[in-house]
């Protein structure tokens, strides 16, 4: 293993997860912490911590300069971005590459390619994946209305720079299009710095099925099965399970193959997930988007395949050939992950864990 020291640019559960993989691989860990996380669990597990900024995420975990400088300053060979924060930041991946630091993830180009949802759609279409009828960029509410009329309502108005369930609005009738279009554009501009919108047909009776991929630098891409993440709250996954329980094996196979096709076509490196929508009424499936990072729910895939995805991430980042062939991937059992959200119902369900006084496990 050429990587001997990694800077972990994240916190909480995924930081602990990465540290565990590093312990197994004999990689030294340097944890980047904000002021607030100096005494966190991962901070106590890492070989060393380095404080990269104050508690505010924008000044710490989202601070590319601080992260890259911390990696250089601690002579770390690599940076693992975890998930969320800068895990899908083209700028971070590029800055690492420019400084000779290995980014544990895909290339900056691949991140950018899949990060723009319109570009991802075009690519998936070129690879022959089944696509939801939709549009390219729609510049005005009028254009949006035209497209909506063509593909028939209801439609989903989406931000090209969004993804992950963010920046999406349903339009059920033409009367509300101008107002929804305007607010969608404004919100996209505020949240993503880009107000480019596009449309897709909305599937009411849908399942969210995603496929875990691993790809190395030699063009080998394998899938590790699918996950069903249909149970969501405000477009955020609450329950994830593997394998997907409500699809036929024939459909399962087609979805897995479609994901591999996309991965192979772009020469995808490292861990990633291709997401699909399944129309339960028709049994058809459609490409949704691709996430170019390790995901929160990756453990359910690990549980049924016995493959340690984070360790594989490091091996791939190290330039090693994938040591797993597709036929080596077997599935045993069923795994379910449930996310526990603590919210204040009287305050619009604002996330708040309150004060935990007793915990029984």
């Amino acid at each position, binding site marked *: 293993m050429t990587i001997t020291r990694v800077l972990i640019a994240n916190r909480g559960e995924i930081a602990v997860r990465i540290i565990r993989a590093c312990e197994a691989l004999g990689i030294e860990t340097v944890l980047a912490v*904000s*002021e607030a996380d*100096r*005494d966190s669990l991962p*901070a*106590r597990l890492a*070989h*060393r911590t*380095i*404080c*990269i*900024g*104050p508690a505010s995420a924008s*000044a*710490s975990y989202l601070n*590319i*300069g*601080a992260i*890259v*400088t*911390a990696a*250089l*300053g*601690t002579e770390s060979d690599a940076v693992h971005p975890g998930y969320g924060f800068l895990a899908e930041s083209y700028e971070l991946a590029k*800055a690492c590459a420019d400084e000779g630091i290995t980014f544990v993830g895909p290339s900056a180009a691949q991140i950018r390619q899949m990060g723009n949802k319109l570009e991802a759609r075009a690519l998936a279409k070129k690879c022959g994946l089944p696509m939801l009828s939709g549009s390219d960029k729609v510049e005005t509410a009028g254009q949006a209305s035209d497209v909506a009329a063509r593909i028939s309502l209801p439609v989903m108005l989406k931000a090209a720079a969004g993804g992950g369930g963010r920046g999406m609005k349903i339009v059920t009738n033409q009367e509300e299009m101008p107002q929804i279009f305007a607010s969608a554009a404004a919100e996209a501009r505020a949240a993503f710095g880009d107000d480019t919108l596009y449309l897709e047909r909305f599937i009411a009776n849908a399942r969210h099925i995603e496929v875990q991929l691993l790809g190395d630098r030699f063009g080998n891409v394998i899938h590790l099965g699918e996950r069903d993440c249909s149970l969501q709250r405000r477009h955020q996954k609450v329950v994830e399970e593997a394998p997907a329980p409500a699809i036929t094996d024939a459909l399962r196979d087609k979805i897995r193959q479609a994901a591999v096709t996309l991965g192979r076509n772009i020469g995808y490196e490292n861990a990633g997930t291709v997401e699909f929508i399944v129309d339960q009424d028709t049994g058809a499936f459609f490409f949704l988007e691709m996430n170019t990072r390790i995901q929160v729910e990756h453990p359910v895939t690990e549980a049924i395949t016995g493959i340690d995805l984070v360790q594989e991430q490091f091996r791939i980042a190290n330039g090693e050939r994938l040591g797993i062939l597709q036929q080596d991937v077997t599935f045993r059992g069923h795994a379910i992950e449930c996310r526990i959200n603590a919210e204040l119902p009287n305050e619009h369900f604002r996330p708040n864990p309150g004060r935990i006084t007793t915990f029984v496990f």
Partner: protein
Amino acid sequence: MTDAFRILSDDEVRQIALIIESLDRSTFDFLQLEFGDVKLTIGKGQPPPLTGTAPLVPTASPPVVPQMPSDSVAAPAAPSQPVAASPMAGGQSDDTIAIVAPLLGRFYAQPEPGAPPFVAIGSQVTEATTVGLIEVMKTFNAVSAGVSGVITEICVQEAQIVEYGQVLFRVRPIGKP
């Protein structure tokens, strides 16, 4: 080995290792620490006859001296000392105020190579005085003293990476003896 270290938390052991590293990089030969019932002497050659528990006060060029609490290290619930001292804390039993790094980056003591440093021990500073630069990805940020007084201690070396909140200088505020 494990017996001797049972009284120390994992974190304390880790901190000791970092201190040893720092000592190695500094101009000092010995460091004697006492925390709780544990007295630790680290050094090379014959230890000088030391009394007391305070760390050696630098007289030579600014070494990397981690700020040690002279009393017992608290339970592992406070692991942020000693290498990265808690920001803004006065720290020592004297009345100095710490100037801490407002961001992570590479610290430069002088405006450019070959130029004299912004400040030295004994320099008078006001709140607006630039005491150093911190560089992040080729962007240089000036660090202001934020306090009026006299520099009593330089806690960082030229071109050293400093963490957010790391103590850079100690200042004896104006008005105190």
